[in-house]
């Protein structure tokens, strides 16, 4: 058995000007996860920290940099699963949280449930001491541009095609 971390940054089409940075981001995340494994950390710690690193990277559609819904708001989903026990935790349609993956892990570790959604997930985050962040801090100029462009039915360029991948 050989320890390993494998990460992805999404299957949407990446404009040329963002390609190198997107590749660099997944390399950094994989290295981070692997460092955790090599220092004796668990596979769960490795995947959660690797994903959190990509959530904090505005290049990816997760956490800061998430795409916007039709109202121009951020609603995020996340899931973790432990293959040893089949324990899992998830959040859906969660807002104003910087790292939904941490919240999903808390659902797994601290509740008897599998998934919390919307306002309930947000209240759980608050109860767990996860700070509320302004929605604006999760929205990038790039995400706002794609949202505006997509409101225009005439627009049909690469950035809009990317958005069809969740």
């Amino acid at each position, binding site marked *: *058995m*050989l*320890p*390993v*971390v*494998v*990460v*992805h*940054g*999404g*299957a*949407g*089409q*990446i404009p040329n000007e963002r390609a190198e940075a997107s590749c660099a*981001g997944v*390399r950094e995340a*994989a*290295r981070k*996860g692997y460092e955790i*494994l090599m220092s004796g950390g*668990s*596979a*769960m710690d*490795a*995947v*959660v920290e*690797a*994903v959190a690193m990509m959530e904090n990277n505005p290049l*990816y*559609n*997760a956490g800061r*940099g*998430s*795409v*916007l*819904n*039709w109202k121009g*708001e951020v*609603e*995020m*989903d996340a*899931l973790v*699963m432990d*293959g*040893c026990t*089949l324990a*899992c935790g*998830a*959040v*859906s*349609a969660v807002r104003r949280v910087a790292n939904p993956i941490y919240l*999903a892990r808390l659902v797994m570790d601290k509740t008897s449930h*599998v998934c919390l*959604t919307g306002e309930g997930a947000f209240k759980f985050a608050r109860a767990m001491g996860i700070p509320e962040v302004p929605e604006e801090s999760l929205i990038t100029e790039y995400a706002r541009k794609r*949202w505006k462009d997509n*409101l225009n039915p005439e627009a049909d360029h690469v950035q*809009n095609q990317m*958005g*069809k991948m*969740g």
Partner: protein
Amino acid sequence: TVGAVAVDMQGNVTAATSTGGMLNKMEGRVGDTPCVGCGGYADNQFGAVSPTGHGEAIMKVTLSRLILFYMEQGKSPEEASDMALTFMLERVSGLGGVVVVNPKGTWAARFNSKQMAWAAVQQEKLHHGLYQE
């Protein structure tokens, strides 16, 4: 969408996936990501999967669990991923990609979309890619 799978020194496998969803989605729309067996799955007996792509298509074929089902039947992570992605494309016209590991540390990063940024580290060696082939 971003995601990760890992195997640690104890042979435990895990999966994690996080997403902002689909551009200009309806308020309240939830895709595959938080759904167990769709947006991720992990079982020490077979392996772990984190997907990305058309969320509704991934949900219709329960992509992550389907890949592990193929691995349970003896397929490698790469073969199982390709079979499941082909099934998703043929049955529901879905595009996407996956990262997969089995408990021995054999891994795969496969996709039928044009691009998927991915990276893997094993035995101190970094692997990465963006385009098909």
